[in-house]
């Protein structure tokens, strides 16, 4: 079985890739996917810590997994709302390219 360090590294790597996607891609849906990827990589961190933080009974710390459960739930809600917003946005502007969405320009 792999070590905690390796899990954390993979998790960080996924997070960084997600971040890169957010920063580079201009399609707002892909940006949204990358955000989901970042959330999931955080989940991996939590699960890894849960697994390696065995308590007195020798079982994983399930509080971490409960937190992951909550994160997934919230992420699902977020995806639903976010995609609805994207649809509304698309209806209004006929675009999903973030470079065209600069109405907050100062």
């Amino acid at each position, binding site marked *: 079985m792999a070590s905690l*360090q390796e899990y954390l590294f993979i998790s960080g790597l996924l997070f960084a890739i997600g971040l890169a996607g957010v920063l580079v891609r201009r399609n707002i849906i892909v940006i949204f996917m990358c955000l989901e*990827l970042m959330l999931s990589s955080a989940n991996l961190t939590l699960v890894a810590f849960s*697994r390696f933080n065995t308590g007195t009974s020798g079982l994983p710390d399930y509080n971490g997994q409960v937190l992951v459960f909550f994160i997934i739930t919230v992420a699902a809600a977020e995806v639903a709302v976010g995609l609805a917003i994207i*649809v509304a946005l698309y209806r209004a502007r006929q675009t999903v390219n973030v470079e065209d969405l600069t109405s907050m320009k100062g």
Partner: protein
Amino acid sequence: MPFFFYAFAAIAVIGAICLICFRNPVNSAISMVASFLGLAALFIGLNAYFVGIIQILVYAGAIMVLFLFIIMLLDLKAVERRQRANPLFLLGGIVIPLIFIIQLCAILPQVPNQDSEPLALKEAAKDFYDKDRKPGEQSEIHQSLEKGSLPDVHLVGLTMFGHKGDNSTIKTPGYNFPLQIIGVLLLVATVGVVALSLKKRDSLPENSEH
């Protein structure tokens, strides 16, 4: 075991890279499924079966379908432009994650580099032994642990809903209240999505004939 870890980690990372590299959003979505499947496998490798299955069901299943559906609905292929991204943004988008990874590598050696032992399930079973019950009528968790399998779902449930008995090492008040809040959140999200998706006729007169 390390083989599986590396294999699934590779799937997850390659899926993620494909996600940001494919120009077509449909391909991106498919890559994301691959990445999430790899992640789910990693969860399962960490003995977190329940979370792994949830990951597959919710992300690879529901959310992915949602994404694909929206991509199809908006017919985005035509919208994607051919022009290059702003080089400044491209640079920032590469440098910042790189710095992040460097920082991660710098801090990782401070984490205890332990290889996880296989879980000592038989010993853990003792903690779930109920003295007031006969050996044949012990709880599911105890029985499973005795048999050498991890009753993952039961344990998550135990943690989530709390445990009032005095014969267990896991004594938590549970997460009942946050669970209710999450329920309300989902409800609000549902209502919000419906409200957002409603077509306002007077605000979009050119679409009113649809």
